[in-house]
């Protein structure tokens, strides 16, 4: 699965004469702008590991959580809270990118009619860290490389002091 996604990224870059995909670039810029050095990864993403460097397991300035296979939002929340509580340094960041089309349906009581809004509300409500940056994965007609680097992207900041 991972191999095919990375190949797909390379193929798309080649087809359209690109150096980088916008989502990758934005993450890379976030790392630079915030002087992040200790980065950990959750979920298979060899490409991002190579792009951003580092590969730590704890005391993280940033954890990159990449979800591009079948998943449940409730499981994501569990993982995110665990990362925030156990892996991040105070003021560290969690970057979550999810392919919303691959979510297994599950009922969320505060859901609205709009899926993207519901995802945002769900994550904001359930994850124990404030959202500092959010990119909606609003339907894009399939032209913005969601299957290379998912468009639904949220940055959380660990405000725990311990």
């Amino acid at each position, binding site marked *: 699965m991972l191999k095919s996604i990375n190949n797909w990224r390379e193929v798309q870059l080649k087809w359209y004469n690109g150096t980088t995909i916008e989502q990758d670039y934005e993450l890379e810029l976030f790392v630079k702008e915030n002087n992040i050095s200790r980065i950990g990864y959750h979920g298979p993403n060899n490409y991002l590991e190579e792009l951003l460097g580092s590969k730590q397991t704890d005391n993280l300035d940033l954890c990159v959580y990449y979800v591009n296979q079948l998943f449940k939002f409730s499981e994501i929340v569990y993982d995110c809270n665990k990362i925030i509580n156990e892996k991040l340094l105070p003021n560290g960041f969690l970057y979550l990118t999810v392919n919303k089309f691959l979510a297994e349906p599950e*009922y969320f009581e505060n859901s609205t009619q709009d899926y993207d809004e519901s995802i945002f509300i769900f994550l904001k409500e359930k994850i124990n860290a404030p959202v500092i940056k959010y990119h909606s994965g609003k339907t894009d007609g399939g032209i913005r490389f969601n299957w290379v680097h998912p468009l639904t992207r949220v940055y959380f900041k660990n405000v725990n002091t311990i």
Partner: protein
Amino acid sequence: MSILSKINIVDSDHVKDQYCSSLYKISNDIVNLVKLKLLAGTTVVLNSGSFRFDIDAIYLEPKYLAQHDLTWHQNTLFINYENNMLLEYTLNKINPTNIVILNSEIFIQYRSWSDIDTEIKKLKQFTTQIIVTVPKHRFDFNRLRYTYETIAEKLNATIVENTLLICH
């Protein structure tokens, strides 16, 4: 540095490869199910990759692909699918009994189930029966509110393997 934010499908040198990658896999079992549902008469298969099927039909494919060396079904016509008037004119002329769209990104476009439903209703005006297959993970609906079964019911569809089979 060139930062890619969007695909430009039509103007790419790789338009053929891009088109082929946008044709989602479909099992023989589902194709056979579709064949069983066809009513007697003329069938039009729309933007689904005519080289993939052996259905006795007229195939309509995007005009920008006409010069590309794919092994198109011999009964393939190329039209500008973004020109709705031309599509409607063509469908009126053919007057098909069945319109069929099989796992086609050009049709699905990751749209919401309700937008897909609207598009199906528009096309239904030109035919007695319309059959559309949509892979479960390639269209938009609120997965924090509805199940696949609920959406299938709203679309009057059945779920076969990982695909919604809509037949109106």
